C-alpha cells in the first residue's frame, strides 16, 4: 500500500495563471474578503451552498481527456456530497472546458450563476501524470489557487481528493476531509453466524478492500493519528482482545496479554498510547496502555461498566460511557482518571461518546422511546442536538475537520428469521442536514474516519 503522505511526489504553485493575478502563495496571503477566513457557520450552511462550475479538466489526447474527466467527476462528487457546494449543471456551461483551461471568460461563468470556477489540465506522462488546476473567484476574476501535481498515474483519485480539499479550504476557510479513508467492519452472512471483517475504503466509497479474512470476528477499528495503524478488537483464538493492525505490512499483533476481555480501543492524540476498556470480574474499567512499554495503567475503578473512552484532541481529558449511576450515561474525566463528572442529562440512555477533532463537540448515541439517535453536545454537556433518529444507529466518528460524522444505521428485522435486517454506513453534517448513505459492497458497521492522508 502506498504511504499516503509520500504519494504526491511533486507539487508546484502555478504562477501568473493566464496573465491574471495568481501566484498561489500570493493568493493565499491576500484572499478576497468575500471568502477569506470564513468560519463555517452551521446556520448558513443549510440554505446557502456555494454555486461552483467544474468543467472537465482539459487534455491534449483522448487518454488525457479521459483522465481529466475522471478527476473532475471525483472532485464534483466530493463537493456536492459535502452539502456545502452546489455544482452548476454542465448543460448550462457556455465556454468550452479547453478554452476555460486556457483563459476563463468570466462573463460566461457569471451569467450561469457560478460563484467559483475550477479549471485544470491532465497530462499522462508514461506511468505518471501531471495534473494542474486553478480555482477562480468569478466575480472578482481572481485566481484563488493554482497548483500542479506530478504523481503516479494510478493515484489520480487521491490527486482529485487533494484538489477537492484545497478548493474546500480556499472557499470555506477550514480544512477539508476528502483525502481520507474509512475503516469499518464488513458484515456478511446470517445474523446469528455473521462474518465480520475489517475493510477500508476511500471516504467516497471507492478502493474498497478487506483487511482481515473473516476467520475471526473483528470489531470496532479505530485509526492511529498517523493513519497507518488501526486498533481493533479481535476474537482471535476465542479470546476477545484489542489488536493492532499495520496498514503497510498487513501484520496484526495483540496489544498485550492483559487479563480478561479488552475492548473499545482508541489511540491518544499523540499516538503513543491506546485507551480501552477492560472487563475483569463483574466490572469493566478504563485503562491506558503505553505502546512502547505495553504497560497498562488503570484510570477508573469500581462500580459499573465503563466503556468507549475517547480523548479530547489536546489529550487532557477523556470522555467515556458508564452505567455507574444505574444506566448508560456519558462522563468526562481528566486524562489521569481524576475529576470524573457526568455530562449527559437528557431523556434516555447515552453511549459511544467521541470527541470532535476540533475539540468543541462530543458526538454520541442516544437511546430512548424505542428509538436511537446520533447527536452532539458541548464537552460540558450543554447545547445537545440530535442530528438523526431511527430504529437503530450508533458509533459516530468525526471527519478530521469535525464537520461531518459517519455512523451506522440498522433496519429492523421484519420476521423471526431476521429478514429485512440491514446495517449501512451513513454520513451527516454536524448541523443535522445532508444525511447520505455510504455505498459498501456488504453490510457495514463501526466506521472510523482517518485523519487527512497527505496534509
Amino acid at each position: 500500500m502506498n504511504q499516503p503522505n509520500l504519494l504526491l511526489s511533486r507539487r508546484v504553485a502555478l504562477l501568473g495563471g493566464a496573465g491574471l493575478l495568481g501566484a498561489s502563495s500570493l493568493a493565499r496571503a491576500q484572499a478576497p474578503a468575500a471568502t477569506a477566513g470564513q468560519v463555517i457557520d452551521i446556520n448558513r450552511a443549510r440554505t446557502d451552498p456555494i454555486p461552483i462550475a467544474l468543467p472537465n479538466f482539459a487534455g491534449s489526447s483522448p487518454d488525457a481527456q479521459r483522465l481529466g474527466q475522471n478527476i473532475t467527476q471525483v472532485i464534483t462528487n466530493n463537493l456536492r456530497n459535502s452539502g456545502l457546494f452546489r455544482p452548476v449543471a454542465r448543460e448550462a456551461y457556455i465556454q468550452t472546458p479547453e478554452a476555460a483551461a486556457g483563459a476563463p471568460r468570466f462573463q460566461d461563468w457569471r451569467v450561469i450563476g457560478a460563484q467559483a470556477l475550477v479549471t485544470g489540465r491532465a497530462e499522462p506522462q508514461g506511468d505518471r501524470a501531471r495534473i494542474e488546476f486553478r480555482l477562480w473567484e468569478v466575480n472578482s476574476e481572481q485566481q484563488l489557487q493554482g497548483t500542479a501535481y506530478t504523481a503516479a498515474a494510478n493515484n489520480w483519485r487521491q490527486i482529485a481528493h487533494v484538489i477537492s480539499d484545497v478548493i474546500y479550504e480556499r472557499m470555506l476557510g477550514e480544512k477539508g476531509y476528502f483525502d481520507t479513508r474509512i475503516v469499518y467492519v464488513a458484515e456478511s452472512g446470517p445474523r446469528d453466524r455473521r462474518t465480520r471483517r475489517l475493510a477500508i475504503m476511500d471516504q467516497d466509497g471507492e478502493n474498497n478492500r478487506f483487511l482481515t479474512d473473516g476467520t475471526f470476528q473483528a470489531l470496532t477499528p479505530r485509526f492511529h493519528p498517523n493513519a497507518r495503524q488501526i486498533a481493533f478488537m479481535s476474537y482471535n483464538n476465542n479470546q476477545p482482545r484489542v489488536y493492532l493492525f499495520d496498514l503497510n505490512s498487513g501484520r496484526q499483533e495483540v496489544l498485550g496479554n492483559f487479563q480478561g476481555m479488552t475492548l473499545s480501543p482508541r489511540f491518544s492524540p499523540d499516538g503513543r498510547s491506546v485507551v480501552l476498556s477492560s472487563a475483569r470480574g463483574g466490572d469493566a474499567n478504563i485503562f491506558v496502555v503505553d505502546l512502547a512499554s505495553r504497560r497498562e495503567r488503570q484510570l477508573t475503578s469500581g462500580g459499573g461498566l465503563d466503556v468507549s473512552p475517547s480523548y479530547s484532541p489536546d489529550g487532557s481529558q477523556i470522555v467515556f460511557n458508564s452505567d455507574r449511576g444505574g444506566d448508560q450515561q456519558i462522563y468526562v474525566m481528566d486524562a489521569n482518571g481524576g475529576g470524573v463528572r457526568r455530562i449527559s442529562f437528557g431523556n434516555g440512555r447515552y453511549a459511544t461518546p467521541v470527541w470532535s477533532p476540533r475539540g468543541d463537540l462530543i458526538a454520541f448515541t442516544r437511546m430512548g422511546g424505542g428509538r436511537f439517535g446520533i447527536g452532539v453536545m458541548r464537552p460540558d454537556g450543554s447545547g445537545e442536538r440530535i442530528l438523526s433518529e431511527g430504529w437503530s444507529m450508533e458509533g459516530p466518528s468525526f471527519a478530521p475537520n469535525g464537520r461531518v460524522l459517519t455512523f451506522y444505521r440498522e433496519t429492523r428485522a421484519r420476521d423471526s428469521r431476521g429478514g429485512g435486517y440491514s446495517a449501512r454506513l451513513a454520513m451527516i453534517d454536524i448541523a443535522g442536514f445532508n444525511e447520505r448513505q455510504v455505498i459498501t459492497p456488504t453490510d457495514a458497521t463501526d466506521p472510523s474516519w482517518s485523519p487527512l492522508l497527505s496534509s
Partner: protein
Amino acid sequence: MNTKLLGALAAAALLSACASEDTSGAATGAGATGGTGMMGAGAVRPGSQEDLVANVGDRVFFALDSSSVGADQRPTLERQASWLAQYPQVQVAVEGHADERGTREYNLALGQRRANAARDVLVASGVSSARLSTISYGKDRPAALGSSEDAWAQNRRAVTVVR
C-alpha cells in the same frame, strides 16, 4: 422485571427456539428454562452439549439491562452444576449475550458481566472455577433473529457450552 413475566418469556424462548431450529423433536426435560433440542432423545451422548441441552438446560435469561441471575433462573444453573459433577472431565465456556437494543461496546461488557454472573452461580454450586471460562459476544450473536420483545428476551442470555 417480575419473575412471572420472566418465566413466560423463557417459555416463549423455548417454543420459539425450537421452531427456529431444524429439529423434529421438541426439547425434553428442560422445563421452562429454555434450551434447543439438537438431537432426538436416545441419540444423546452423556456428558455432551446435546445431553446438557436436552436434559439440563444450557442457558439462563436476564431481564432488560440486568446481569443478575433471577431466582427463577438459578435452578437451571444448579442443575448444570449437578450435571458437571457427574462428568468431572467436562470443561465449559459460559457465553454472555445481549439483545440488539443497545450499543455494541456496552453490550460486549454487559455480556461479559452476564457470563460472570452465571459462572459465579456455578462456582457457588460447587463447580471448580478451573473448569469454567467466560466469553462475551455482546449483541453480535443473537439466538433469535427477529426484532421483537420475544426475540430480545431470548437473546439476553448466558449459555453454557461444553468445550
